């Protein structure tokens, strides 16, 4: 299968999955995070760090409501956003009411993952569960996936390296870890037949783990219910298989526009245009050749 096969049509299944796994392919697993029942306890953040031995992310008080981890990154794979609003939670509420939105963000495990597409080393790969995982022993810290992710999920770990490994050329050797890290959808736990640590810890089932197809149906039913009850701004985000990234493996029910939660309103996998870009690049290269040769018309001086 050519790498371009699905780039031209970015809806449907992830590139190369499940067929590349043949027998070993598993149903696609993911999350439905229902923020309407998130109590902002951050158990998911802590459970993730405990299980995956993610380092502390700095003791910075931000004043951004109760959010002091601020954003997803190399050292925060689950992040709970807090948004305080002068707006009633439901239409039937008093109009001077306030509400406090809480939402636990995570890697979206995109159907078409820019990070995975652009990774030059193959460190990022698609697991048999259809999830997107970084192989820490392969990642060389090139950093390409970082700006490639439409959601700003990945980041480089700037903390000192842990495993001691001699530098081939000491002059160049940086002491920091320098690799990128993100949610693995608890690949190791999945292999062991367990649900991810964050979902396990969530006391309210705001984080629901399961087969993506089944979760999508659940989400539709939930949205209907909330809309019937008149919840302001209730909407599904990333559930739709024909959005810009072919739908998320980990999608959400939000109570306001995505950007209020620091999420892009209309994300598109950057490699969607890559075929065209390559053609363009080749033409430009030809241009360079042309320029270089034309320059000789008109003699030596």
């Amino acid at each position: 299968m050519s790498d371009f096969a699905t780039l031209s049509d970015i809806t449907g299944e992830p590139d190369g999955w499940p067929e590349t796994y043949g027998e070993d392919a598993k149903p696609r697993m993911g999350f439905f995070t229902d923020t309407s029942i998130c109590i902002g306890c951050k158990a998911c953040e802590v459970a993730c760090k405990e299980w995956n031995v993610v380092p502390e992310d700095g003791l910075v008080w931000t004043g951004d409501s109760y959010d002091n981890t601020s954003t997803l990154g190399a050292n925060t794979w689950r992040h709970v956003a807090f948004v305080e609003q002068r707006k009633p939670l439901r239409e039937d509420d008093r109009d001077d009411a306030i509400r406090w939105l809480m939402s636990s963000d995570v890697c979206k495990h995109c159907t078409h993952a820019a990070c995975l597409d652009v990774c030059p080393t193959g460190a990022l790969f698609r697991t048999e569960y259809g999830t997107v995982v970084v192989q820490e022993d392969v990642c060389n810290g090139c950093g390409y996936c970082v700006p490639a992710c439409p959601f700003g999920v990945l980041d480089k770990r700037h903390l000192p390296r842990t495993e001691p490994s001699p530098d081939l050329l000491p002059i160049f050797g940086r002491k920091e870890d320098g690799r990128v890290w993100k949610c693995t959808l608890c690949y190791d736990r999945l292999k062991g037949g367990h649900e991810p640590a964050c979902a396990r810890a969530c006391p309210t089932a705001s984080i629901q783990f399961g087969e993506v197809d089944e979760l999508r149906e659940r989400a539709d039913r939930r949205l209907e219910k909330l809309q019937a009850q008149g919840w302001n701004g209730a909407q599904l985000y990333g559930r739709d298989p024909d959005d810009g990234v072919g739908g998320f493996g980990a999608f959400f029910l939000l109570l306001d526009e995505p950007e209020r939660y620091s999420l892009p309103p209309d994300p598109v996998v950057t490699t969607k245009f890559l075929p065209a870009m390559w053609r363009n690049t080749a033409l430009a290269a030809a241009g360079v050749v042309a320029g270089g040769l034309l320059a000789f018309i008109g003699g030596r001086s």
Partner: protein
Amino acid sequence: MGSNMAENHPVGFQWVLEARERGAEVIHVDPRFTRTSAMATRWVQIRAGSDIAFLGGVINHILTNDLYFEEYVKHYTNAPVIIDERFQDTEDLDGLFSGWDPQKGEYDQTSWQYAGMEVHGAAGQRESGLKTKGEQSGHGGHGAGLRHGEPPEEDETLQHPHCVFQLLKKHYSRYTPEFVAETCGCSVEDFLRVADALARNSGRERTSAFCYAVGWTQHTVGVQYIRAAAVIQQLLGNMGRPGGGIVALRGHASIQGSTDIPTLYNILPGYLPMPHTEYYGDFDNFVQANISPTGWWGHFKSYWVSLMKAYFGTHATEENDWLFAQLPRIDDDNSAYWTTMQMLDGKVKGYILAGENPAVGNSNSKAHRLAFAKLDWLVVRDLVEVESAAFWYDSPEIESGELETEQIGTEVFFLPASAHTEKDGSFTNTQRLLQWHSQATEPKGDCRSDLWFYFHLGRMIKQKLAGSMERRDILIRALRWDYPTHGHVQEPDAEAILQEISGWDETSGEFLDGYPKLKDDGSTVCGCWIYCGVFKDGVNQAARKKPHWEQSYIAPEWAWAWPANRRVLYNRASADPDGKPWSERKKLVWWDAQERKWTGLDVPDFEETKPPDYVPPDGAKAEDAIAGDHPFIMQADGRSWLFVPQGLEDGPLPTHYEPHESPFDNPLYSQRSNPARQTFERPENAYAPVDGEPGAEVYPYVGTTYRLTEHHTAGGMTRTVPYLSELQPAMFVEVDPELAEREGLVHGGWATVYSPRAAIEARVLVTDRIKPLVVEGRKTHQIGLPYHWGTRGLTTGGSANDLIGLALDPNVHIMESKALSVGIRAGRRPRGEALPRFVAEMRKRAGQGT
């Protein structure tokens, strides 16, 4: 109300959300908009310290609109009972009940009695009038006994001017919706919405529950807050029924257990009273004083004797009065705060802190640190070196020079403790559920369990005193102290101790299956009568973990509940007087006419074969004196008490009093605060001037303290953990935008909060979640203070408790940490010795001595 369940009991809160999803209305009444409010279907903001006004308003609403559950009220509560004609209400005496003694500063409760008889409250009632009996009537477990078996005088029509029902009406007649709005700062509409919702959602078909925690208890009228809810729940018929009740969301994992098998000075396991000096040597007299001829407390002696057998085994005999004469006596208030005050006066030599960090966690923590400096020795058993162990070299007083390490004579011993994951044991939770947990990992280094510590400490002391002939050593020598140990550290076997608590029959050697089996002849051993049966059939019942989807929704096979694995207390009230469920929807236990016994989903909280129409014969004793349609079997009269004739220090009916420190006057009475509240007038514990007094404007705002999900209480377990510290890495105050404007506070900047006791600094969080309120026509601002921070750990910061003065509830000696008067100004606090100078300066401005 008075609970922030989503933040402080998040795992339990999942069921509240479950209920919300099924259409239940979830109401949160709180001074702040919290993570609980965010999940509730309705949030009502009130001023901290004004709940009795609110709840009293609900009571008045129910009574004036006849919304009460008539049949329930008439049969199951003491509404019809006629009260002694000498009784006078606060409405008659401008804020005082009859019997107030200004000299002693306490009530003589005789005029509150049922007409023509002396009702006899909890065990230990003879001691009434002595400050020692707080928790004896404070923590569940027990009720009262009548001197003699006759039922009290009643008026079934509820019309008699001195019947409880009419007294109730009169007492709350002025708690109108307008009064509530004025006093609490909420709107009339919001109040009525709540009152109606409660009434609408009660009756035969439906029930409502109150969840409270320390937002209610930590007031000088804390106990009366809960009483007010109890009155509502009785009027609406929500007690002893599924989905009803008053749910106390308790604190530390086994804080319930620590009152059942108490860490308190004045009660013994199962709420048996600690003998007082006035019973020196006289066992029968003691029993007579505490036994109540009717109700389950009629078996007081069996509970007592079985406990003594557990303590002293063969050494306790009929002949030696089960060693009663040798037992230590209490002669005064020995509660924690009182003891700290004694410490400040140098009257306490040594102190053991096991799992407590008062240098941060206790109110007026500064006074505590100063007090520790006066000790000869201090032992701290904790997971980490907490502030209380480090006060002598790391504390605000060391920084300010008020204490100097060189000058402190206290010898501090820090003994590392092992955590719950490192030992076997049980937690007793909010629902009286004993849940067993097993050791997951070995303790590190020198860390040892508390069990290990006390067992080996006792063992060594016994060794040292083995030969002693001293009278005071007799008990130590008599102690049964033969618990099996295992492992290289000789850890005592926790199950062996649970067995002793559950009890066995000495003659047959069989484990007991419940407290009715206890005997007063020394043939049974039981370490805590209410826990009797937790080791029934030699099985650790607390270790049962059958999931709820494999059994009824009552889940009787998950762990074990005291008493008798009963999940809902007084559940006979879930059936009508004839023993039929009030409704199919709400059935729990009922009378099976064929089988002629009580049955149902839960263990009936009633004698199995006592028919609904049972009428006690004259002179009946103990439980036999309780009629078949009186479900509240722990009460002498089998009824629940709308009006409490005995057992409370501060009145038979909840009354709105202002907090000890409050910028407002009591709109009802010239008696502004709880007259019986306990205060400590001393320089370390100065109080702010209250409304009307000069200088009140120096501390113009209502401060209230609380918790955050991300930290635990005094922080020893969380400020030391990176994954939690990063989630709330700094002490902050929550203020409303208007107050910020007015005081020049910048969001994200620093503020200094001060009281007459101290000043602390914190980051400023400006938020709409704590709006200003209009109270008694005046706009007031509240300042929210989390209390988790101290000088140690990964994240450090000002301790809210430095600000709080000690003013206590008279019944349980709990401090008023939920409402205090404070001032605030922009910027960081003064450093070094400038800090105490600043505090003194403010007090001067408030016209208080330097």
